[in-house]
């Protein structure tokens, strides 16, 4: 089992407060300009500029969407993450007049590139793509964004508080204290997930029973060494959900596994968790944010940044969307934001009770990504692939996060769930020390001396409030889940959490955007 983080997506695009200063704007723009698009950059740079700068470019008015917003369009899309951008693109292709409003001064939502001081680009947000994620792969191909295989040669490392450090190949660490339990448990999870309708997990005959139980409880009931195998599963849930097994509804986890496939391939735990043949198989050359950046470039002035939505009113057969940059009237609205952001919007009329309850019960995961940069990926010379699992410490799930060239070498720790709760509140210095010690325990003393250290705490992101995805606590999916895609008057819902396959991933974001655009198109 190559336990790993997946690739979250949508964006943010709402709320009352002014957006934070985005430290990535200039970087992103520079990145855009260096990705082979110099010829078009002049025409598209406005996408990545702050509103003020963009206003200046357009003369400060005149209806250009980098200046004053248009008064009226057919559809407003809220959020310029992948899902919102895809919905915008699909609606434009239907011949509709569309405006995509984004709270931040960048596009991409939970997909964010980070340019290293030592050269190269890594992802601070969603990063991986893998087999059966056909929609994001097709979009990447269309945008001439290429992928590369995640480095996966050599052994992985497993550290157990009981049995110590081991190197291993294959999927599940060869820990005799957990191996039998893990094999039975994973087979059972796959078999239960195969019965789940990905479009309506709450309709399964055992849905109530499974939803009433946490994944942790299920493990305790079905494993001989439940703490051992529970710890192993934690190394999957913390990066994957930003949560621990006890926080997750079993039904939700089964649905998530069922979603880890497509219409022709049944979802499995291993496809979700593995590197080779799984969701962590590949990454994007130049960083995953290239996808929303290039898509936004194609959309031109249909995307307006720094336009946080404050209020959405439905009245007189129209929707009035009040943003930080002005008010726009539309026939329909697509909301493609993380669930907490939707609750931040002032709705008139109020959201239906069931939807409000649903959103209140969809918790964003707690997750940060901590990267240490080295002159070279030295662990590769030792026959290690850079992947590691530890049942304790700050670095519980570790990946080789080096750029495609392997220069420089980068190790990535996902710090999620209870590990985040322990290490997140520490000072950066203390956390850095703990993470590097975790790397050193896996890959040796060289790991203690990186040339650069960087971290991204998604819980502190004003327009996301967590990551990598929203999850369901026990007892909430059956009660409120059916509202997930239910249209509210003239408002439709996108965002990766609303997808039927690869929910929580970039692929789910694309799917959700396409589905929402179809819904809107059939009503206009």
């Amino acid at each position, binding site marked *: 089992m190559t336990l790993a983080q997946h690739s979250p997506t949508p964006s943010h695009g709402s709320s009352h407060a002014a957006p934070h200063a985005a430290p990535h704007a200039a970087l992103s723009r520079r990145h855009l300009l260096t990705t082979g698009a110099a010829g078009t950059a002049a025409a598209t740079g406005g996408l990545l500029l702050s509103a003020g700068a963009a206003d200046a470019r357009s003369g400060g008015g005149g209806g250009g969407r980098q200046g004053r917003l248009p008064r009226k369009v057919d559809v407003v899309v809220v959020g310029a993450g992948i899902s919102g951008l895809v919905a915008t693109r699909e609606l434009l292709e239907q011949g509709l007049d569309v405006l995509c409003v984004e709270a931040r001064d960048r596009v991409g939502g939970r997909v964010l590139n980070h340019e290293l001081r030592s050269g190269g680009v890594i992802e601070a947000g969603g990063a991986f793509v893998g087999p059966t994620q056909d929609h994001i792969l097709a979009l990447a191909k269309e945008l001439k964004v290429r992928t590369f295989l995640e480095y996966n040669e050599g052994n992985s490392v497993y550290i157990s508080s009981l049995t110590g450090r081991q190197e291993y190949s294959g999927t599940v660490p060869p820990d005799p204290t957990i191996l039998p339990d893990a094999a039975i448990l994973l087979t059972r999870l796959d078999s239960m997930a195969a019965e789940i309708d990905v*479009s309506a997990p709450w309709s399964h005959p055992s849905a109530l029973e499974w939803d009433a139980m946490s994944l942790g409880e299920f493990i305790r009931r079905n494993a001989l060494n439940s703490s051992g195998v529970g710890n192993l599963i934690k190394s999957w849930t913390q990066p994957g959900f930003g949560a621990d097994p006890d926080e997750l509804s079993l039904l939700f986890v089964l649905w998530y596994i069922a979603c880890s496939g497509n219409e022709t391939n049944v979802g499995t735990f291993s496809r979700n968790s593995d590197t080779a043949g799984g969701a962590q198989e590949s990454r994007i050359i130049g960083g995953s944010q290239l996808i929303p950046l290039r898509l936004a470039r194609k959309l031109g002035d249909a995307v307006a940044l720094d336009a946080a939505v404050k209020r959405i009113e439905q009245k007189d057969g129209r929707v009035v969307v009040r943003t930080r940059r002005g008010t726009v009237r539309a026939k329909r609205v697509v909301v493609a934001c993380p669930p907490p952001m939707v609750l931040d919007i002032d709705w008139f009329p109020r959201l239906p009770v069931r939807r409000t309850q649903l959103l209140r019960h969809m918790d964003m995961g707690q997750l940060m990504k901590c990267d240490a940069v080295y002159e070279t990926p030295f662990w590769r010379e030792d026959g290690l692939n850079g992947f590691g699992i530890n049942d304790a410490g700050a670095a519980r799930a570790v990946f080789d996060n080096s750029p495609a060239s392997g220069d420089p070498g980068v190790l990535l720790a996902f710090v999620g769930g209870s590990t985040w709760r322990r290490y997140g509140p520490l000072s950066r210095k203390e956390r850095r020390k703990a993470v590097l010690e975790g790397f050193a325990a896996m890959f040796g003393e060289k790991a203690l001396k990186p040339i650069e250290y960087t971290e991204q705490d998604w819980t502190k992101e004003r327009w996301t409030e967590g990551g990598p995805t929203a999850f369901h606590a026990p007892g909430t999916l059956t009660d409120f889940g059916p509202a997930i895609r239910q249209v509210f008057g003239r408002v439709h819902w996108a965002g990766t959490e609303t997808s039927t396959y690869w929910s929580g991933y970039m692929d789910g974001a694309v799917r959700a955007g396409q589905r929402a655009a179809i819904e809107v198109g059939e009503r206009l």
Partner: protein
Amino acid sequence: MRRLALRSVAGLLAGSLALLLPPVATSAAARDGEAPEKWTTTVFARVPSPGAPAYVHVHTNKRVYAGTYAAPDGQPSKVFEWTRSGTLLRSWAVPGQDLEGGEHGVQVAAQTRSGRLVVLDTTTSRILTLDVTRGRWRTIATLPEGSVPNYATWAPGGLYVTDYGDGVVHRVTRRGKVTEWLRDPALDGLLGFGTTGIRYLPEERSFLLTQQTLSTGDALPTNGALLRVPLEGRAPGDVEVVWTSQPTDLPDGFGIGRRTGHVYVAMVGLTNRIAEIDPATGEEVDSFPAVPLVGENGSEIPFDSPCNATFLGKTVLVANQSAIQGDASHHAVLRVHVGERGLAPYLPKKARFR
């Protein structure tokens, strides 16, 4: 077709399989850049739980719909929606079913001119419409008790619905009034294997129907048939047998090729095949796969109770129901290349309910 009946008599029918089957074609996957060969089969989409898809409807909105024909206790039947490339979009649970009353199912049989799906509920004998835009259901009519609405077609006078349970074709007017339009010995099947597919051909003013078993004495009772029934005024003319199937074929839903006029019939029975029939001559001109029974079609999922052939481009979509084996991993919509486009179902302006 009816799943329970199929299971209960599968063994009985198996005994009559010694009869010869016609020469058959083989499947070959297309090489890169080449058009696929005839009968090349791929998986369009697996059908999520409760699975057991029945009929596939290709909508005028260019999307694809299928209902689930055999949901167990506690689980409602569903209607699934896909894009024409096979991306799952949405699903709707069917309201008003008795979820504790045993297996229950629906079939998306047609659509109205305005785009509402016509959904037949086999256990409650209801004819429903589903507005996919708003997710709203409406009960249009209820057939007489014991009826098992199976397939439907629009024709002058309303919606014509085959009754799998009673050897009858019902006519449902636009106001929802139900009348018995045709009752004929040719529709009396053996052991409950009754009338299945139906299509109205306006140019000929006649219907084509499939009958899973014929108990008229003209053939072995395990043989099914393709029937033709002219429309004379608003009344049915004499029933004509166009073609007789092999034993245990159990002909089910079908599609009609636009260029050739050939009828592609799915055999939901033990032979697990698709036959191509020339209705002008009554000849079976082709059949797939080469080796019947096991349903090996070259795709990941073999034919396992294939129950319809609905045209999408130059392919037919086949609902793979696994009615006998009950293997959920075979519940899928398969796509079979046939090399010609299909004749669109008759959908007049009056194809709607008041």
